[in-house]
């Protein structure tokens, strides 16, 4: 049985697509057949972060409408074996998706893939509801910042009431908290919510903490998931998340401020 994982947040710009790209890549690198679907109809971006934007011919809406076969729309990742991308439509209306249409595609994908990652659009409207409806797991992407934490709590409420598992009274969607753009230096200075505060408020298990990192922008500039960069702290943190998701016990890293040298402490610098 394929596991359907939604990457969601409520708020925009917190790192859903970055997370979807890296987690999908990480699962595939571990040998699992994985497909990642962009649900952000009208504003597709997953293709850019995966570096396959010039290979998009058909998209999710084409398949839902029967204008293309699923295998025609799936893009095989160049870098990683076992990984495919299903892009969103750039031109259609976000209401183009229907429960029946999406379910049909997911059922078809479940035959060929072990993990189906659904990259949700921001907000709590149709597209976001479609992305989370069929989920078995939810990765709640949250920045340590008031509006993001509040919106994450809101999306948790929606998962608990409007997902298929909730409606059919089945075992609830497994929720995982992923805190991104964490800056331990600012936490130490009392300028940023501590990871424990975010955990306490949202009260769901923590699957990982991704440090704020220059390498994330560099990776998206290049269209390579940051997980592929072994030297990057964010990339390593994403690899840890994937391992934890697969049941490995991995201690959390990058929660403490970086140690600075004497001169750097005296005169600043981009630590």
């Amino acid at each position: 049985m394929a596991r359907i994982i939604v990457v969601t947040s409520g708020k925009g710009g917190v790192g859903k697509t970055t997370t979807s790209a890296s987690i999908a890549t990480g699962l595939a690198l571990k040998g699992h057949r994985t497909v990642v679907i962009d649900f952000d109809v009208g504003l597709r971006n997953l293709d850019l972060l995966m570096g396959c934007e010039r290979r998009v011919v058909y998209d999710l809406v084409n398949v839902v409408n029967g204008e293309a076969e699923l295998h025609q729309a799936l893009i095989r990742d160049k870098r990683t074996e076992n990984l495919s991308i299903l892009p969103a439509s750039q031109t259609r209306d976000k209401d183009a998706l229907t429960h029946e249409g999406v379910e049909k595609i997911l059922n078809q994908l479940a035959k060929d893939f072990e993990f189906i990652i659904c990259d949700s659009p921001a907000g709590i409207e149709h597209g976001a509801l479609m992305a989370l409806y069929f989920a078995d797991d939810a990765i709640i992407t949250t920045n340590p910042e008031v509006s993001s934490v509040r919106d994450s709590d809101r999306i948790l409420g929606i998962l608990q009431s409007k997902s298929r598992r909730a409606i059919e009274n089945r075992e609830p969607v497994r929720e995982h908290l992923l805190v991104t753009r964490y800056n331990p230096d600012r936490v130490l200075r009392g300028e940023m919510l501590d990871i424990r505060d975010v955990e306490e408020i949202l009260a769901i298990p923590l699957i990982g903490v991704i440090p704020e990192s220059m390498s994330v922008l560099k990776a998206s500039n290049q269209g390579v998931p940051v997980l592929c960069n072994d030297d990057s702290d964010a990339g390593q943190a994403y690899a840890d998340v994937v391992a934890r998701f697969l049941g490995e016990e991995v201690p959390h890293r990058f929660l403490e401020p970086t140690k600075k040298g004497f001169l750097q402490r005296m005169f600043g610098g981009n630590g």
Partner: protein
Amino acid sequence: MNLMQLFRSSRKEENTASIAKERLQIIVAHERNGRGGRDFLPEMERDILKVIQKYIEIRQECIDIKLDSHDGCSILEVNVQLPN
């Protein structure tokens, strides 16, 4: 902390993270309360206002309704400010 920050921080700076946490705890608890069903408070407020207005002339702003939970016990607080 560098030298410039050392001078700046001689002014007492507030720990903004703890303010954020406090604010979040309040708003999130409040919003979770409303999740159980539909948010009936605005409608109830209008109804109570109508009943009072049958007898006393008051304005919408004079009525304030809150629903709080303490230790599993819910308290409905209705505050009506009557005109002098």
